[in-house]
């Protein structure tokens, strides 16, 4: 038996999963759309990973798991994960492991974007988009839909443009009305797409990257890093090469798996998939996971408490601001 660790990154748009072995190399990877259903998506990811592990042979046994991304808490409860980490830390850990000399990590995901400054392999500063979701993956995919182009082809189309259209980058609302205008006056499609990629890059640098020193080597990751047009726009605007790792979109999941490996095997789980010490795929896939929101009426604050059920058992709850609203787990 060889020990392995599972890492899952459940984002708003896509769900990523990796399995690493004890030498911290990725032995299985999966990338699927979340489609508004994080529990089902992570089940599917786990299913894919299981199939890949079976193919790899070598009798890998998963002994620890980590989750990250916006549904980390929910899926963490489902998996009985030992590490539930925010995506910023997970990305920093994952990227600095693969690229120890990196100085700046640019990351654009489905709903958020962040920049992480690294010095000596340690994250020293970060910023995350706050009030505005401009220039994130979901914006690009909705605009791709408007233009009738698959978002996967977006980058290649953009690279064919000779003269990118100038599209306002301040805010998605303005960008969108600018874009519609340019379409209606008959700009070539590739010029508009290239203009959009430029707008995403400059919006990112003006908002998230504002005031941060962007030093080379730069690594760009997150779903949008698969878009060659945006990569090109970044290289042009920064005037330095921007590296994209082939596993760049999996970096959060990889970071979570690394953190789980640091935490070591789970040996004290009383129930859940890790009850036997190794990950039991059936235990996770067979159960039905549901989330219910309960309003606590024990004081005037009316906290919304989120309870996660595995079939009929409450396995986790959060959202209460005081102990009065604490919900007992029944599993």
């Amino acid at each position, binding site marked *: 038996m060889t020990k392995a660790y599972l890492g899952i990154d459940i984002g708003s748009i896509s769900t990523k999963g990796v399995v690493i072995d004890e030498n911290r190399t990725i032995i299985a990877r999966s990338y699927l759309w979340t489609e508004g259903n994080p529990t089902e998506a992570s089940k599917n990811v786990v299913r894919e990973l299981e199939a890949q592990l079976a193919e790899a042979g070598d009798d890998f046994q998963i002994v620890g798991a980590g989750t990250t991304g916006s549904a980390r808490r929910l899926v963490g409860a489902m998996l009985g994960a030992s590490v539930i980490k925010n995506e*910023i*830390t997970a990305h920093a850990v994952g990227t600095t492991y693969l690229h120890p000399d990196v100085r700046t990590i640019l990351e654009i995901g489905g709903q958020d974007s962040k920049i992480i400054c690294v010095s000596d392999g*340690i994250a020293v*500063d*970060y*910023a*995350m988009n*706050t009030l505005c979701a401009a220039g994130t993956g979901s914006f690009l995919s909705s605009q791709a839909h408007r233009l009738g182009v698959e978002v996967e082809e977006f980058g290649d189309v953009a690279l064919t443009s000779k003269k990118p259209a100038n599209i306002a980058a301040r805010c998605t609302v303005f960008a969108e009305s600018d874009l519609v205008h340019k379409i209606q006056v008959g700009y070539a499609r590739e010029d508009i797409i290239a203009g959009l990629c430029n707008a995403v890059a400059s919006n990112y640098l003006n908002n998230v990257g504002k005031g941060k020193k962007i030093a080379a080597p730069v690594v760009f990751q997150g779903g949008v890093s698969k878009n060659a047009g945006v990569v090109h726009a970044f290289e042009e605007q920064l005037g330095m090469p921007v590296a994209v790792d082939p596993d760049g979109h999996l970096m959060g999941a990889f970071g979570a798996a690394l953190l789980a490996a640091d935490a070591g095997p789970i040996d004290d789980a009383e129930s859940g998939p890790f009850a036997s010490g190794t990950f039991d795929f059936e235990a996770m896939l067979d159960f039905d996971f549901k989330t219910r929101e309960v309003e606590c009426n024990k004081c*005037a*604050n009316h906290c919304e408490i989120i309870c996660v059920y595995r079939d009929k058992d409450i396995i986790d709850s959060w959202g209460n601001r005081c102990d009065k609203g604490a919900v007992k787990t029944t599993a």
Partner: protein
Amino acid sequence: MAKPQTMIEQVRSKVSVERERLRPPSLHADRKAAKRARHKAKHHKYTKAAFFRYCYYDPAFKFFCEQVLDVDYLPLPEATRTASEVGVQNSSDYVCTPFKHILGDFAEALDLGADILIQFGGPCRLGYYGELQDSILRDMGYDFIMLNFARGIEKGYIGWAKEVLKTVNPDVDIPHGVVQMKALARMIAHLDSLRDFYLANAGFERERGAFDAAWARAMDAMRACTDERDIAQAYRDTMGEMRAIPLDKPADPIRIGIVGEMFTAIDERSNLGLDHKLVAMGVEVHRMLNFTNRYLRYNEPNLRVGAKDYLTYDMGPTSTLTVLAAKKYAEGGFDGIIHAKSAGCTPEIDCIPVLQKVSEDFAVPILYLTYDSQTSDTGLDTRLEAFYDMLAMKKEKRK
């Protein structure tokens, strides 16, 4: 010529002077007091005053109402989401968040039976808010007296006191009020130093909840005070209690300094419990910004000297304090700084480029937080957790 005093007379006079000195401070002897009280009972309306919710200064507000203004104080219950929603519904979307919270609090106070609303204004746009909230609330159909500290401020201290205090209570005893104002200043300073101690140590309590319990008792003790002597006693007792709480504090804990806007950086409802979240992670928290440093001991030109590499002019209400505090924390080897402001707070937005310079010069990370009237703290948790992880990993590596 007066007859020289005999020995016994001298002793007698000394004793009586000494006794007078030891007598607890009381209302000055006023032969007309009884008559006035009778008059007041007959003519003066029984009034209840309410403040908005602001940080941990509720005992000071109570003291001000009861001891200075001589009106009843209407304490507001713990904030609920409804209060903020009423505020949001009735204010312009672009106004800064404190306005919305305060408006909601006022509406709630009026629903609970307040006759007088007190708005102490502030050093920025907050100074104009009293006037605006007054007319919004009247448009909503409420009837009340607004005591707006921003009014009559141009008339100097005495003129202001007369103008402001008399709008509420025509019988207000000004000399007595002045004495109690001094006590009030003392109370605010004590509340701030209690809070400073709490922030620096609550993250390391051995028994979970000990500091919060001590803090609640301190608040109750302060609420029960009626004069300066009580305040001093309450401070000694509760501070002693807090110091006695056993700690597990590492020699070199993670230290974070909070800087930012007057309302959001301090008020836990506005910043979604920032203090508690940091303390729960086991962080030593410092915050120079408070009433004492901004009002009681504020000397802007001298404060600016400390940050003269960064500031040439007074940039706004709390800007000097924000920049100076950030610089002090950076120089003092703090692990990180958190800058908290409400959305659309122009003075603090102006501070950000300066803070970025401080961050670069001292290589200290700064987390910028902007709050609107949101109630979900998921995004905040993610950012704080990541910030903490980053600082912790950095510290680990440096060892």
